[in-house]
């Protein structure tokens, strides 16, 4: 499964022409916003490189991230698995099961120790000894720590492994944490999203295979090339925001005219992702194009930031009881102040009378 094999040899064996290979490299370079010359560099590097060993660990997750990747259009999953990487362990996609599956992971770790890429989706439960999610009787925590030791780098795919995600949401009953909360001594790249855009997952993997390192990251360890701009910055409805034209409901005239969804709770202005540019389903559309606001799923704690339909500038809490109590308190203190002042006024009046 993990035989040393250059990508060039693999391509020759499968009968893929150099033209097709260059087209693929150009598409990847374009996706990553690399200069045109990078396509040739990428082709040259990939020809000579060994297929990258990848171990994919799925922890406390819903398999949405893997589902997303299997819908990747450019490159396709087939291209990824058979041309660029050697996916040595992924318990949803691999044919092996039980002891044979775990054996595949151990063999891959041994064969490429210090060189393999570790991909993680799902958060890691830490409460009660991590018993809330186990694979082959091994807790997610233990498996992550063990597998991370021999990894060249780690890619946290999805919001759960990047920030804890939905399992981390209040009250976080399993003590779910992100990969970066546990692994401190390895380069970790976060590719958040619930799920992440398939092309983004594929693009960052292509970059790592080509250059042998992670791309430039932002303060939340996200690849800048995909997470530098907000959805709002790149949204095709942005001109309506600038004009002050907003849909008030999902079926009013503004909604039908395609006006900005800010008043309907769109989190586009505070969400950094490439949905508005790369889009989904092979570039067909993204949620805002379908008439629904952005949920902000690629941001930390997106589940605990109030309703998805609550506009960004509004208060998060129901302040009515606090305001009522404060008003009553103010009335009480004001009345006492007035009584004291009136007494003082009376005293002054009495003195003036004398």
């Amino acid at each position: 499964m993990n035989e040393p094999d250059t990508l060039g040899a693999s391509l020759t064996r499968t009968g893929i022409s150099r033209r097709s290979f260059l087209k693929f490299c150009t598409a990847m370079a374009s996706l990553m916003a690399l200069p045109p010359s990078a396509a040739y560099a990428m082709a040259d590097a990939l020809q000579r490189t060994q297929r990258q060993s990848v171990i994919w660990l799925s922890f406390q997750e819903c398999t949405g991230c893997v589902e997303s990747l299997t819908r990747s259009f450019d490159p396709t999953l087939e291209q990824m698995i058979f041309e660029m990487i050697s996916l040595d362990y992924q318990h949803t996609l691999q044919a092996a099961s039980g002891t044979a599956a775990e054996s595949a992971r151990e063999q891959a770790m041994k064969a490429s120790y210090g060189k393999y890429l570790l991909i993680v989706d799902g958060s890691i439960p830490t409460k009660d000894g991590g018993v809330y999610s186990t694979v082959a009787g091994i807790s997610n925590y233990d498996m992550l720590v063990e597998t991370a030791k021999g990894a060249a780098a780690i890619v946290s795919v999805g919001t759960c492994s990047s920030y804890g995600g939905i399992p981390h949401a209040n009250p976080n009953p399993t003590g779910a944490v992100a990969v970066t909360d546990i692994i401190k001594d390895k380069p970790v790249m976060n590719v958040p999203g619930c799920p992440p855009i398939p092309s983004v997952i594929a693009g960052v993997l292509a970059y790592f295979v080509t250059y042998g390192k992670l791309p430039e990251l932002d303060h939340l360890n996200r690849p800048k090339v995909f997470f530098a701009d907000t959805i709002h910055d790149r949204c095709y409805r942005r001109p309506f925001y600038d004009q002050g034209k907003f849909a008030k409901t999902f079926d009013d005239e503004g909604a039908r005219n395609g006006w900005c969804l800010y008043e309907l709770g769109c989190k586009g202005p505070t969400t950094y992702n490439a949905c508005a540019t790369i889009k989904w389903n092979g570039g067909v559309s993204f949620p805002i194009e379908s008439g629904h606001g952005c949920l902000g799923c690629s941001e930390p704690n997106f589940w605990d930031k109030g309703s998805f339909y609550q506009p960004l500038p509004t208060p998060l809490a129901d302040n009515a009881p606090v305001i009522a109590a404060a008003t009553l308190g103010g009335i009480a203190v004001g009345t006492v102040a007035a009584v004291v002042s009136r007494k003082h006024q009376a005293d002054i009046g009495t003195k003036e009378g004398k």
Partner: protein
Amino acid sequence: MDLLQFARGPALTWAFAIFVFGMSWRLLGILLLKRRPDYSEPRHATSWPGAIKLIITRSWPRREFRPRTVFGLSVGYIFHFGLVIVVFGFAPHIMFFRSLTGLDWPNLPNAVIYISGAITIAALIIVLGRRLTNPVMRLLSNFDDYFSWFVTITPVVTGMLAVAHLGARYETLLAVHILSIALLLVWFPFGKLMHSALIFISRGTTGALFERKGASI
């Protein structure tokens, strides 16, 4: 909890609480003060028309003082109107008020808001410059004047930066903008910004007194 969550959550809750507490305390403390007995014969049966009349007439300079006050008054009016347009005309602000009161009204085009915001900032800088350069005004000014100016201009500046996405990430700018509003709300009842409510009480009281005495308003 990130900065925006803090601003939209506990910061605003505490600011609202302090604002309404302070406003009710101060307004009630003043309104319940004992009135001096007036033993003179009232010239008019009702005095409230005089209160309203004086509130209006005192909002406009008297002819004899006009040359000396027209500049300060004009700049003052400009930034007050600018603030009203920005605060009550901008769509996200209307959303904010709607979430608190349930009231809704149409928003102004963003271009109008941006221009009003820029004019308001310019006018506020001019009034500060005038306060700093005029020896008499500088002598009369204290911390309250300068801090009230600061908490007034800060939300306008941070709001403009948030809208333009200038200087930091939008979520940070929005959080700072909301925090600056929280600061304004906290200071409002206890500083000179309270004039926005007290000006009507003081002028109304004087007007009612003048009406009763038959004085010219």
